[in-house]
């Protein structure tokens, strides 16, 4: 029991748990992407920048308005979601009738502009943000020290994923949304304002990214590039799970977090590559992704 495949068991369990924690971030970010793609058919490349904005708004609230972490969890998604609404109204809504590629290019460009503006304003090295006093410290699990804050992230992420899934699959608004994706003209004929619904959906997807950004602010350096590294992995997660599949993105997010965690033990140099190897295999065998509809 002391060693598994030549690796001390405590180390292995520790890495599994850490993988799960990273998976929580992947799941939360890919969830927002999946919601946006599923409903709007837009591949939102601004997502990484919006994740970063969430963290920065948390920092601004603390340093400029004196509002701490708990307020930031509520206010930052609203503020960043509002900027999402503006972007959708003024730009993205004009591209729905065109090929996916246009939406992708537009959102990619908007993301670069946002990152550039933050870099000019705040520099590239980042801002400090503390773990809130209530969540400091760690539990001794025997095989490793588990920081309380990381446990909190996992729980919050699971709750957020469940809530999103419930809203879309089990509520009336969710059913309108799903219907509008299938046949917007018909849903509009029933008197439902489809364009407004699209706008709010984009805002909600963006708010999820910002929410993840606030969760990340105390653990990672709050800097303008913080979303850029993560977003590439998150896109792979979405592709593996199946574009637009909410269940797929959540399950894949957690699973890939664990796979990546294990790779870090057995072959650390390959830990950033393993996700893309999985992606290649999935695309070769199931081009629509694990949970996608062909």
């Amino acid at each position, binding site marked *: 029991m002391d060693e598994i495949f030549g690796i*001390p068991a*405590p*180390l292995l369990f*520790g*890495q599994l748990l*850490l*993988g799960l*924690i*990273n998976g929580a971030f992947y799941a939360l970010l890919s969830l927002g992407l999946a919601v946006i793609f599923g409903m709007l058919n837009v591949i939102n490349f601004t997502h990484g920048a919006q994740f970063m904005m969430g963290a920065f708004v948390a920092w601004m609230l603390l340093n400029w308005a004196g509002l701490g972490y708990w307020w930031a969890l509520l206010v930052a998604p609203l503020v960043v979601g509002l900027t999402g609404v503006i972007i959708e109204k003024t730009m993205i809504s004009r591209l729905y009738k065109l090929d996916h590629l246009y939406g992708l290019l537009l959102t990619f460009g908007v993301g670069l502009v946002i990152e*550039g503006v933050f*870099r000019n304003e705040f*520099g*590239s*090295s*980042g*801002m*400090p943000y*503390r*773990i809130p006093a209530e969540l400091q410290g*760690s539990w001794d699990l025997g095989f*490793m*020290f588990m*920081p309380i*804050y*990381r446990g909190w992230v996992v729980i919050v992420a699971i709750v957020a994923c469940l809530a999103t899934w419930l809203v879309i699959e089990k509520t009336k608004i969710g059913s309108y949304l799903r219907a509008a994706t299938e046949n917007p003209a018909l849903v509009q004929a029933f008197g439902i304002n489809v364009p407004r619904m699209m706008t709010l959906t984009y805002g909600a997807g963006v708010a999820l990214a910002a929410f993840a950004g606030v969760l990340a602010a105390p*653990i*990672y*350096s709050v*800097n303008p*590039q*913080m979303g850029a*590294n*993560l977003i*590439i*992995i998150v896109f792979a997660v979405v592709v593996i799970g199946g574009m637009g599949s909410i269940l797929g993105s959540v399950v894949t997010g957690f699973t890939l977090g664990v796979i990546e*965690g294990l790779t*870090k*033990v057995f072959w*650390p*140099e*390959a*830990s*950033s*590559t393993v996700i893309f190897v999985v992606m290649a295999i999935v695309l070769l065998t199931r081009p629509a992704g694990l949970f996608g509809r062909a």
Partner: protein
Amino acid sequence: MQINRRGALAAGAALAAGAGAARAQARPTIRLGVLSDMSGPYRDATGPGSVVMTQAAVAEFAAQGFQVEVLQADHQNRPDVGANLARQWYDQGVDVILDVPTSSVALAISGIAREKNKVFLNSGAATSDLTGPQCSPNTVHWTYDTYMLAKGTGAAIVRTGGDTWFFITADYAFGHALQRDTTRFVEAAGGRVLGAARYPFPATTDFSAYVVQARASRAKVLGMANASTDTVNTIKAAREFGLHRSMRLAALLMGIVDVHALGLDAGEGLLLTESFYWDLNDRTRALTRRVRAANQNRPPAMVQAGCYGAALHYLKAVADMGPAAAKADGRAVVARMKAMPTDDDAFGPGRIREDGRKLHPVYLFEVKGPRESTGPWDYYKLAATLSGEEAFRPLAEGNCPLVRS
């Protein structure tokens, strides 16, 4: 202000026109090009601040008999982009390229400067190979290098009983060099390296997995052979997982902007090695007062101060030999720079060795706690001072082909 490749081309065109004008005025123009990271992770420690500090040197020198012009461009940390910009600049009349963080880009440009017989004054890159196997008669390495970092922080921690190490290393040339140089000091002092985790660069955000491995190794010291955001994220993870209670954290390359990003709560007690700190003495404080407003109200960082020191000494050498002779032969300018003793407000008196290594005192600092600090940027306590001869690699050990014994 950022300049991309197209911007640099436009600047080049303007420059060609300027060269004509200069001839008409019969007052030669010396052109300094600051080639740096204007948009990536090293921007705050180098970048626009390096331009500001180069301009400060020009202002202080107040050239007589020739004009001085400062240009800037962004190499995006890519050797191909940097090499292209350097070729264009040198071909269009730029006499000296300054700064150039990122070791791979710096090594490429050192080769180009030699080929075109121009001058390359490096401040931002870390690799000690610039004055080692790849040294050049056209290159001066001004501010710091991996050997001096390893000797400063690494050796100091070994001396205080930290004799078993675990490294978290960025998996590329710079990380490997820093781990190699530090390992040498650890082993020379009778210590041992118990393990290392090499993580993919730059695709890593979360360091908790490596921090947990480090803890499992039961080493006394965690050596971080990385830089900038990666170091900040590693330290944050180490503190979160309680590592700082059982291990010493050795941030082998960390500067004042990283401490600012980390915050003093998390940074308190860290040891780090720098050759410049704005609050070191009266001269550094006076320099900081002169430039602070232009530098976005921040004191200069070490690499930025290096651009000031290097530019000032270069201009003195040009004035000494005459601008026409200086423009014609980069190698002769560097030879003159080596022959003249250096002195500036950032580094004090010093000299440039025949392999191109600039020698000046190096300082080991301890990061203050939040209570000791009187405000933003008051971050360091001086722990030890090493002379230039002690801190940098002995001339004979560098394998520089210019040095023949």
